């Protein structure tokens, strides 16, 4: 197979949309970690995140030819990832707070913020999966409220309002509590 596409260009998305498997492979390499991060952020479980990420790419390959705007590939892909993770979370048993504390040990060694990793993990585990999905798209994937609104078919004001309530609750749990 000869690769005749450039990584990171819109051309690569168009080539993948046209069925070019080399281009699709380049997209997997470019966005694979973003997809995993979103899935993990929603699920809070590494194994489940890996499965959801794999399903995301299968869905992406099937649906790519129907993508309306190739310049929005990343936000579209991460919305697919969040959706797959949400469905996975709803079909699996809810993790216990105790399990989530164990998971927190994986990343609390490097202090990057004033937020306590274990308390954050506990709060996230108590949260509704839809709220974790919103946090993942906004703060992990870095999508704007209008982008999330367009992908979810709701208003940007609705997204901002819901995020505001989620952040306020987290602040209450992590700072004020």
């Amino acid at each position, binding site marked *: 197979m000869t690769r005749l596409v450039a990584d990171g260009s*819109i051309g690569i998305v168009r080539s993948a949309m046209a*069925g*070019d498997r080399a281009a699709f492979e380049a997209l*997997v390499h470019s966005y694979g970690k973003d997809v995993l991060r979103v899935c993990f952020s929603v699920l809070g479980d590494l194994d489940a*995140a890996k499965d959801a990420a794999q399903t995301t790419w299968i869905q992406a390959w*099937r649906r790519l030819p129907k993508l309306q705007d190739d310049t929005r590939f990343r936000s579209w892909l991460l919305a697919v990832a969040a959706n797959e993770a949400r469905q996975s979370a709803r079909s699996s048993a809810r993790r216990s707070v105790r399990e989530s504390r164990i998971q927190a040990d994986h990343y609390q060694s490097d202090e990057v*913020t004033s937020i306590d990793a274990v308390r954050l993990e506990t709060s996230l585990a108590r949260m509704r999966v839809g709220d974790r999905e919103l946090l993942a798209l906004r703060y992990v994937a870095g999508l704007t409220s209008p982008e999330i609104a367009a992908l979810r078919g709701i208003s940007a004001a609705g997204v901002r309002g819901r995020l505001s309530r989620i952040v306020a609750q987290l*602040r209450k749990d992590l700072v004020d509590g």
Partner: protein
Amino acid sequence: MDDERFEADLQAALRHRAIAADSLMDADAILDAVEKSRHRRMRPMLGLLAIPLLLGAIVGVSALANWAHTVPALSVSGGALAAQSCGSGAWPSTPVNCSAAEAAVSWGSASIERTRVWLTSLSAVKAAFNPPQQVNEPPPSTAVWVFVYDGRWTCCIVGQPDGTVSGPSDHSRWLYVVDAVEQGYGFINIVDWSGRPVPDQMPPP
């Protein structure tokens, strides 16, 4: 801590937490899963092939064995002139019809002034256009839809017949080839054809 500071800290904490998933990245496993899924989706179509057998249809075993990469024989012999669109052509039945093949890709902001479409074989496309191989290709005998578009299209990096690459650039003519047998994921090739001749006829598959 003010709201802005908390939000910034929360974002940093969530991103730091998410990085834990980076170690799971395995592109080969993902591509393998995609490929397996693709083959699973083909099974129902292959299963339908058993129906003519059960009904005692007049289809020989050898014809069935070849079905995966053939289409029913065309009634025309020799070369076929291009149709101006999918709707204007008289096509034999194929697993991937002309309209579905054409709709498999969006040309975005391209302006299309003229379309020529044939149903032919991949080997005929190779002989007439000599396009470079850009993706894994099916056997030369595979039936394919060939679209030649004239107009304006600014696209990505594309392969040239001499094996070099160019782009992104403006194109006035481009070639699009789609597998007429394999649903959705067939061989598709896009190559710049600006200023190059287009054959009058293409042989049937």
